[in-house]
C-alpha cells in the first residue's frame, strides 16, 4: 500500500472532503459557546480560595436550597416513574378514543415555555384556584410550599419518562406476557416479573433525565414555590439572588456544586443501568 502524504495518526483515512472545515467550525463554536463559559464556572468560585467556596456552599441558606432542589427533584422523578410508566403502558397497550391526542399532549411540557407553565400551575394549585381550592378543605396546601416545587418538577419531567419507556414497551412482545398469564401468573405478577425487568434500563434512563431536569428547573418552579429562604427557595433562585448582590464567586460556587452533584448522581444512575443491563443479558 502506498503511504499517502499528510496521513495523520489521530484520524482514520477517508476520501470524503470537508474534515478540517467541519471539525474546525465545530470545535470553534463549541469552545466559544460551551467550553469557555463553563471554564469560567469552574474557575470563578475559587477566587476566595477553598474557604470561600465552603462558606458559599455550606451556609444554612445554601444548604437548604440545595437540599430542596435535589430532594424535590428526586421525589418528582419517583412519582414520574410510577405515573409516567402507567401512561406509557396505557398508550402502548390499549385502544381508546382520544389516544393520539393524549399521546401528542405528553410533549407539552417540552414545548410550553417554563414561565407560562409556572404561572398556570400556580393559578391551578393556589388555595383560591380550581384544584388548590378542592384540596384546601382537606388541609392540603400545594402552592407556596415545597410540595408546589415537586408538582412543578413533575410537570417538566413527565415527558422524559414516558418517551423513554414507550419504544421499549412497543418492542416488547405481548406474547411473553400472555405466556406468563397462561402459566398462571396474575396480571400483577406478569407486570412486575416480566414487563418491569424488560423496561427497567429505559425507565432508569428516563427517570435520570427527569431528575436532572428537575434539579436545574427554574421558570416553572419560582412562581409556585413562594421562594421563602430556608424553606421553599430552590438552588437556581439562590444563584440569581447572589448575582443580584454582585456576589459572582458565591453564585458560581452554588452553580458548580449543582453541576458536580448532578453529574455524580447521573454517573451512579448510569452504572446502575449498565449493571442491570449486563445482569439481564
Amino acid at each position, binding site marked *: 500500500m502506498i503511504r499517502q502524504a499528510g496521513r495523520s495518526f489521530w484520524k482514520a483515512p477517508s476520501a470524503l472532503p470537508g474534515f478540517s472545515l*467541519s471539525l474546525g467550525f465545530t470545535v470553534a463554536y463549541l469552545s466559544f459557546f460551551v467550553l469557555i463559559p463553563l471554564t469560567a*464556572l469552574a474557575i470563578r468560585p475559587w477566587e476566595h480560595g477553598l474557604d470561600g467556596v465552603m462558606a458559599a456552599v455550606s451556609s444554612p441558606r445554601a444548604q437548604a436550597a440545595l437540599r430542596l432542589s435535589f430532594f424535590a427533584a428526586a421525589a418528582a422523578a419517583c412519582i414520574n416513574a410510577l405515573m409516567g410508566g402507567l401512561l406509557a403502558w396505557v*398508550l402502548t397497550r*390499549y385502544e381508546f378514543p382520544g389516544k393520539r391526542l393524549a399521546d401528542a399532549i405528553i410533549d407539552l411540557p417540552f414545548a410550553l*415555555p417554563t414561565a*407560562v407553565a409556572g404561572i398556570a400551575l400556580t393559578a391551578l394549585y393556589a388555595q383560591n384556584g380550581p384544584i388548590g381550592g378542592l384540596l384546601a378543605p382537606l388541609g392540603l396546601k400545594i402552592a407556596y410550599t415545597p410540595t408546589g416545587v415537586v*408538582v412543578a418538577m413533575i410537570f417538566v419531567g413527565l415527558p422524559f419518562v414516558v418517551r423513554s419507556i414507550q419504544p421499549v414497551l412497543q418492542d416488547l412482545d405481548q406474547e411473553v406476557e400472555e405466556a406468563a398469564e397462561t402459566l398462571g401468573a396474575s*396480571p400483577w405478577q406478569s407486570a412486575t416479573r416480566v414487563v418491569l425487568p424488560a423496561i427497567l434500563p429505559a425507565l432508569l434512563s428516563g427517570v435520570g433525565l427527569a431528575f436532572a431536569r428537575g434539579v436545574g428547573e427554574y421558570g416553572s418552579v419560582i412562581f409556585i414555590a413562594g421562594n421563602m429562604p430556608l424553606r421553599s427557595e430552590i438552588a437556581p433562585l439562590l444563584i440569581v439572588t447572589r448575582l443580584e448582590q454582585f456576589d459572582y464567586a458565591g453564585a458560581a460556587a452554588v452553580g458548580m456544586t449543582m453541576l458536580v452533584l448532578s453529574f455524580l448522581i447521573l454517573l451512579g444512575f448510569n452504572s446502575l443501568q449498565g449493571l442491570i443491563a449486563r445482569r439481564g443479558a
Partner: protein
Amino acid sequence: MTVHALLPASVTPRRKACGRALLIGLALLWLVLIVIAPLGVILVEALRKGAGAAFASLSQPDVWAAARLTLLTTAIATPLNAVFGLAAAWCVTRFDFIGKTLLMALIDLPLSVSPVISGLVWVLLFGASGWFAPWLNAAGLQIMFTPVAIILATILVTLPYVARELIPLMQQQGSDEELAALTLGARPFAIFFFITLPNVRWALLYGVLLANARAMGEFGAVSVVSGHIRGLTNTLPLHVEILYNEYDFVGAFATAALLAVLALVTLVLKSFLEHRHADDLAARGRR
C-alpha cells in the same frame, strides 16, 4: 383470542376489561391534572375580564417590543445552531478521529445544565466584574443587559437540538451515497447540496422546530442576563413574569396564552413530522 381459553379462571375477560378501564381512567386523570388543566387555566384566566381586555393587553407596545426581541433572538440563534448541527454531524458521522466521543459529550452538555447556569456563565465572562470586563470597558462595549447577551444565552441553551437529531440519522444512513458521488467526480459543494442535505432535510426541520420552540420560550438563562429593561431587553416569557409580578393577571395570562398557542403549533407540526416522515427521522422506535 384463543389465549383466553387457556387462562386461569381468576383472569376472566371481564376482570381484564375492568382492570383496563381502571388503568386508562387513572392515566388520563393524571394527564388532565398535570398537563391539560394548566393549559386550560391559561385560557380561563386570560379571558377572565372578557376577550376585549385580553386583546387590549396584547396590543400594548411593550408586548410588541418583547415579541420583536423574541423573534430576533430566535432568528439569529436557530440558524446558527442549524449550521453548527450540520457541521458537527458531518465531522462526527463521516470521519473517525481521536476525541470524537469527547466532542459528542460536549455537544450534549448544555442539555444537562440548569438554564440559570447557562445565563450565569455569561455574567461571569461579560458582567460588571467578569473576566472580559476590563477589555470591554476599554473598548466602550456593553454586552450584559443587551440583546446580545440574550442571544448568547439562547444559543447556549438550544445548541444541541439540531445536532442531536442529525447525528443518529446520518450515522444510520452511512456515507455510501456520498462516496459514490465522489467517485463519479462530484465536487464537495455538489455532494453536500444534492445528496447530504436532501437526505437529512426532515430531521433538520425537526431539530430546527425543537430548537425554535426552546429559543422562543427560554426563561431562566435569559432572565439572568437580560436586566429586564422594558421595551429593550424583555422577551415574551420575561414579559409574562413582569406582568404577573405587577398583579396584571389578565395581561400575564393573555401573553402566556400567546406563547401556549405557539407551543401547541409546535406540537402539531412535531407529531405531523413524526407520523408522516417517521422513516426520514432517526430510527428511535417512534411510530
